[in-house]
């Protein structure tokens, strides 16, 4: 490690977006959802993956740079796009297998990568409601590799989600996705939180790295999970943001960030 390569002044929220952005490769076609996924996508596009193509569900296909939109559709995200169509078209691309990478948020996630964007508690009489699938189910159902980004709390990370809005690997047994009619070689491959990063080993969420650079400990990570999480043999420290990453992140994401009213706010959902 060269002296001064890494930033020293950053938060767990910064690490989350930057770690998520690193999941995007230069050759990827990425379907990004609203909020943190969009921030990660725009950061990757502006930093290490300028060649990636970003797909926005309203019908936007972008190989060219664009400013971080307030939600997903703005004149800025539309203007000078390579293609503008509609939601049906871009989801056909995804369903037919032409989108390599999906990027989505979530309300709750469970041990086998199933995501709840719908309701906490009973669907008919919920303790808490989120706005629903939106494009989340489509991203998780269709894309080659799906990455989920969300703040980690014990109430969000469960053995089993209350409502399965976006199926991951169901109960974790092999072949479940294919059995119900989903394409092979799809499903969640990473979960990025403000405490840690996870991969999936044999379809089970597995702790891969801890944000130790922000002072997070393994015990803290485990305390914010509702099950005894599997830990990768090669568990590491999360690579901190580099000085260069932080510079681009501050300039292109933080400066442009406006919370769209009605979006899922950061922090834990109300109590179960």
């Amino acid at each position: 490690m060269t002296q001064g390569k890494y930033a020293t002044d950053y938060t767990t929220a910064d690490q989350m977006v930057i770690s998520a952005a690193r999941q995007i490769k230069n050759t990827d076609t990425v379907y990004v959802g609203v909020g943190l996924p969009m921030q990660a996508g725009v950061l990757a596009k502006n930093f290490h993956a300028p060649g990636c193509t970003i797909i926005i569900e309203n019908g936007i296909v972008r190989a060219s740079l664009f400013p971080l939109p307030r939600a997903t559709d703005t004149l800025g995200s539309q203007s000078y796009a390579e293609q503008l169509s509609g939601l049906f078209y871009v989801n056909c691309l995804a369903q037919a297998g032409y989108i390599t990478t999906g990027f989505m948020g979530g309300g709750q996630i469970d041990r086998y990568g199933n995501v709840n964007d719908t309701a906490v508690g009973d669907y008919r009489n919920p303790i808490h409601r989120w706005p629903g699938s939106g494009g989340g189910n489509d991203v998780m159902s269709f894309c080659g590799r799906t990455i989920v980004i969300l703040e980690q709390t014990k109430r969000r990370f469960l053995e089993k989600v209350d409502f399965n809005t976006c199926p991951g690997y169901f109960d974790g047994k092999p072949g479940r996705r294919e059995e119900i009619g989903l394409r092979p070689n799809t499903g969640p491959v990473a979960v990025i939180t403000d405490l840690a990063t996870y991969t999936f080993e044999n379809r089970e969420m597995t702790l891969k790295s801890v944000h130790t650079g922000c002072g997070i400990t393994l015990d803290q990570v485990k305390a914010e999970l509702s099950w005894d999480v599997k830990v990768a043999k090669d568990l590491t420290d999360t690579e901190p943001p580099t000085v260069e990453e932080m510079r681009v992140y501050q300039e292109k994401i933080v400066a442009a960030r406006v919370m769209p009213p009605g979006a899922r706010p950061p922090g834990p959902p109300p109590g179960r």
Partner: protein
Amino acid sequence: MSNKVMTMKEAVSKNVKSGDLLFVGGAQHGSPNAAVHEIVRQRIDHLTLIALLSNTGILIGEGLVDTLLTGYYQLDEKRSYGLQRARAKGKYPVVKEYSHFGIAQALYAGYMGVPFMPTKSQIGSDMPKYNDNIKTITCPFTGTKTGVIRAVVPDVGILHVQRCDAEGNAQRWGTLGVDHEGINASKKIIITTEKIVDGDVIRRDPNRTIIPGFRVNAVVEQPFGAYPVHLAGCYNDGPNTFGAMQDEEAWENNLKDAVTGVKDWNEYLENLKKINGADFLEKLKIKNPAMSEPVITGI
């Protein structure tokens, strides 16, 4: 001479009826807000609403919607004054939830005139347990399982466009959300347009026509008909595009400003200029238009 060109009041009263299944276009882009507010003004109720990321909360909060077909909506009653208001009126809608692609496919099936569409979306999720319009069947060709989504055929669809001729040949550009599927699936169609143009303008760029005139029932010229939502090539977002009206006072004020206290959308726009300055709307217009190369047709 066409008799399709009419006022918003006429277009809505002639084509939108109590009990209708209504499609509202404009997913986060160019939503037909002037038309939606006219429906509220005429208090057309018992609607079944299918819309995606459009500004339709006012229909729900005013108790005009019996059933809502949606993929994403602020359904947390604790955080939605509109839902609280609907509940207080005893008009909390029945909600049928899809994914966004599910909504698009339901409309696409309607547009195709077929009873359902196969899908790989939503299958295996918990959504079909609570939405009987999504099921799984065995594919008759491969024997594997496939999801199916029931067609939705709206009684009436409303779309706001940049330009349209007097016959209803309507052209829209920018992102299309579910506009193409939704408006083509609809039995009756209201087009609201920034500008009514000569038919020759349409015919020199016919690939841009999203719906042909013979399918359209009403054409309404309504500048800033999508305000406060942006419209490609025309104007940017106004203030408070999302998330306004989160308490009774704000809701009542908006209702008075945009619906009950004015005779139509033009009066509302004039009032906005009186309050915010004569150049208020002018300032929203795009500042750096990008001109395409001409599309050449002809013989």
